């Protein structure tokens, strides 16, 4: 559609808003959809890297006394596998969906701070590169993803491996914080007229909650890592036992961040599933309010359970009991959500497309992971399971069985919206079944291995401990997962060889993003929609079922020749006719580069830090003085 008719009747060219082309346009883009695409492909790349690390781990453990990799390399592999999957795959994959969907779902043209959004992406990319630089140097981080003090002190980690982790995590934290401020403000402040809080899609609610969690939890990590940096570079004594320093302080600071982080990883997937299940059940979400408040409850409780990661460090019976009870309480809101998802499907007109299968996979696998979580909420049980493969099984059931299945549901569901092409259903179903079988074959036996005593993080084991068979089985399972991911890659790549032509609303969705074209125009909505319900499109499409209220479009008589989903007809109360889109800008890239140099200086040479600070300084002023929007920003 090159031209569109506005309410006022004049024909405006949409050519002026066509997506610009070329590398430079991607480096300077502030469009939330493009930034979302960048997040999506970067995080999928790191998902593959983290997956390869996992396969190497499994090859080493396939048989007893194996010497496929050295103990040292093994340490680097499991550290980087955890770090990569958490910070470089699942979090940014969720961020990809925040970027792609939040403005569309709330009926906005972009996020509140488009340049800050670009900045978040570049900082994420640079942090990801920094943390992986260790591989080139031959010493990747090797102290585990939670980098326990004082294993990370200069005394026990003299090499540069931990430096890469410290600096990389610090930079990634800044990226997460910047993006959280942005989405918090966007969701609170940029909603379309009529979209009250309780009319927001559940995915938006979960995004809001995750943003709050990031804002409140990441500073603890920032402080913890800062103290560690100071210990390593400036000889402070925070975690040095000989000087009365307390390694336990690290554990508290880390898990005050680390447990909310678990919900930062799972809530976006819960949001996705809460969008997918209703669509493929042809029923609105069962108990919308309960699902929303259960999410809020999980987040609130999430701040009072961190020490359940530390039951075995000797905090004493009172703290152990308090944290144990708080942890068990989390089962309540989580259970509410699960019952609501089942209630959504109950009696629905179910259609088992790939997004639906992935979502059902999410719910069922997450139940298993949730149940084992309740088991080690009990300190005596936890003392048996701590640091064993049982724990590895548990968190993979929530992070892979939960987050990854949920995120794949989202990928299959929204792929046509952003790329204009549907993914192949046959390949999608093949991927789902392979992934479900491979996932369970890999991780279910780990429960058993843990219970019969196999500790985590050992690079090899002796024969005759009864661990051989299930380790081999698990390794085979891991390769089945790899096969499933290969099927996904084939599916994704071959989708780009097809002509664009996905319908605007292929799944008969209920939320605003399906009212835009596929892919959406840079400005998303020609007219800002007006919303009267939390299922605005269904109210419009099925007035006989969902009431007779005129819905999010005020229906100012669309021309007959226009297709159903044309983007106009809304009473234009206070918006003027111009669409103001933010300017492309290279300043976010410059500021991010300054941060990269500044932090890289801690590893290489402090000269770099000063150069970085100078670049940062120039970048911040360039950013502040540059007008954000298209027209000259003058008053007088």
């Amino acid at each position, binding site marked *: 559609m090159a031209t569109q008719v506005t309410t006022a009747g004049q024909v405006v060219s949409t050519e002026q808003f066509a997506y610009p082309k070329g590398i430079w346009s991607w480096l300077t883009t502030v469009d939330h959809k493009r930034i979302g695409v960048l997040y999506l492909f970067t995080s999928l790349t790191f998902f593959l890297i983290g997956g390869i690390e996992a396969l190497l781990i499994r090859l080493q453990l396939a048989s007893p006394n194996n010497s496929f990799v050295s103990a040292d390399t093994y340490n680097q592999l499991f550290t980087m596998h955890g770090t990569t999957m958490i910070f470089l795959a699942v979090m940014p994959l969720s961020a990809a969906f925040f970027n792609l969907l939040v403005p569309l779902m709330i009926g906005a*043209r972009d996020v*509140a*701070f488009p340049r800050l959004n670009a900045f978040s992406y570049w900082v994420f990319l640079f942090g990801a590169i920094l943390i992986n630089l260790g591989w080139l140097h031959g010493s990747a981080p090797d102290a585990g993803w939670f980098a326990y003090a004082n294993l990370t002190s200069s005394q026990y980690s003299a090499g540069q491996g931990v430096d890469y982790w410290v600096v990389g995590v610090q930079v990634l934290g800044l990226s997460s*914080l910047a993006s*959280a*401020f*942005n989405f*918090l*403000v*966007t969701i*609170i*402040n*940029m*909603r379309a*007229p*009529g*979209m*009250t*809080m309780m009319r927001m899609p559940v995915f938006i609610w979960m995004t809001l909650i995750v943003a709050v969690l990031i*804002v*409140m*939890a*990441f*500073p*603890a990590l*920032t*402080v*913890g890592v*800062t*103290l560690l940096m*100071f210990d390593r570079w*400036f*000889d*402070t*004594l*925070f975690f040095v036992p*000989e*000087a*009365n*320093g*307390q390694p336990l*302080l690290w554990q508290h*600071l880390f898990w*005050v961040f680390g447990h909310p982080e678990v919900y930062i990883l799972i809530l976006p997937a819960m949001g996705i599933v809460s969008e997918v299940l209703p669509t493929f059940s042809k029923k609105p979400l069962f108990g919308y309010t309960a699902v929303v408040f259960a999410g809020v409850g999980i987040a609130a409780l999430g701040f009072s359970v961190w020490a359940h990661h530390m039951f075995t460090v000797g905090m004493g019976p009172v703290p152990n009991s308090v944290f144990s009870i708080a942890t068990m309480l989390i089962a309540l809101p989580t259970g509410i959500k699960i019952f609501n998802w089942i209630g959504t499907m109950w009696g629905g007109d179910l259609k088992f497309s790939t997004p639906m299968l992935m979502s059902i996979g999410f719910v069922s696998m997450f139940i298993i992971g949730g149940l084992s979580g309740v088991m080690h909420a009990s300190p005596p049980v936890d003392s048996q399971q701590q640091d064993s493969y049982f724990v590895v099984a548990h968190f993979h059931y929530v992070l892979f069985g939960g987050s990854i299945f949920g995120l794949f549901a989202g990928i299959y569901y929204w792929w046509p919206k952003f790329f204009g092409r549907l993914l192949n259903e046959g390949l999608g179903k093949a991927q789902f079944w392979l992934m479900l079988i491979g996932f369970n074959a890999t991780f279910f036996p780990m429960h058993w291995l843990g219970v019969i005593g196999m500790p985590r993080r050992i690079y090899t084991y002796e024969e005759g401990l009864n661990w051989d068979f299930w380790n081999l089985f698990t390794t085979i399972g891991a390769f089945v997962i790899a096969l499933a991911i290969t099927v996904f890659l084939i599916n994704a790549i071959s989708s780009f060889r097809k002509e664009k032509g996905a319908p605007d609303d292929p799944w008969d969705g209920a939320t605003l993003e399906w009212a835009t074209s596929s892919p959406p125009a840079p400005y998303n909505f020609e007219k800002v929609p*007006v919303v*009267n319900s939390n299922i605005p499109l269904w109210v419009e499409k099925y007035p006989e079922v969902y009431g007779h209220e005129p819905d999010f479009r005020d229906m100012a008589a669309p021309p007959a020749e226009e297709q159903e989903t044309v983007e106009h007809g809304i009473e234009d*109360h*206070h*918006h003027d006719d111009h669409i*103001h889109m933010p300017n492309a800008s290279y300043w976010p890239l410059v500021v991010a580069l300054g941060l990269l140099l500044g932090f890289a200086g801690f590893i290489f040479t402090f000269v770099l830090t000063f150069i970085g600070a100078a670049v940062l300084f120039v970048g911040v*002023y360039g950013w*502040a*003085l540059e007008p954000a*929007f*298209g*027209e000259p*920003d*003058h*008053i*007088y």
Partner: protein
Amino acid sequence: MAANQGTASPPIQQNIIEHPTSTGLDSRKLAMWCFLASDCMFFGSLITAYLVSHNRAAVPPYPQGFFDIPFTSVSAFVLLMSSVAMVLALSGIQKGNMRRFRIWIVSTGLLGLIFLGGQIYEFTEFHHEGLGLDTNLFGSSFYTLTGFHGAHVTVGVIWLFSLFFASFRAPLVTKEKALNVEIAGLYWHFVDIVWIIIFAVVYLIQAG
């Protein structure tokens, strides 16, 4: 939050190309509040690290009786007064009185600089008395906590002087854009409040 479809949104200020927001609050102001919430957790964690560390010094100097309370009281007073100046600067720009704005914004920045000077003097003194970053846990946690606060003040001072100089270029800092000053003010007051807490926790309670 009722449907804001029918309710009157705040009129769009002429030539400011912002869409009306759902809450009526400016997005940048809201973002600053979110940042301050986050910074609360940042300083909360740092203060906690100080509280659990400072009394575990393995070698002297120990925190008891170490501080020069009258000196730091004066610099704390200076920082508090800078908040008053900040309020006056904001009121100046909101009334379009550029002269008042400039006088008070510079005063705020200068008071901030005096505070920083006091901190540098204090750090130097403590260093002469044998307290370094790597001397003991008291030194490590004291310098880290107060140093990060000082870094916040430094950023604030740069920001205040930037506003001062920007006010000579008409479009940047004007009556209509008083919000730019108000947001800097939020940050500045926050940094002051944090100092009240640090002053009480680190200096006064220790002295008692």
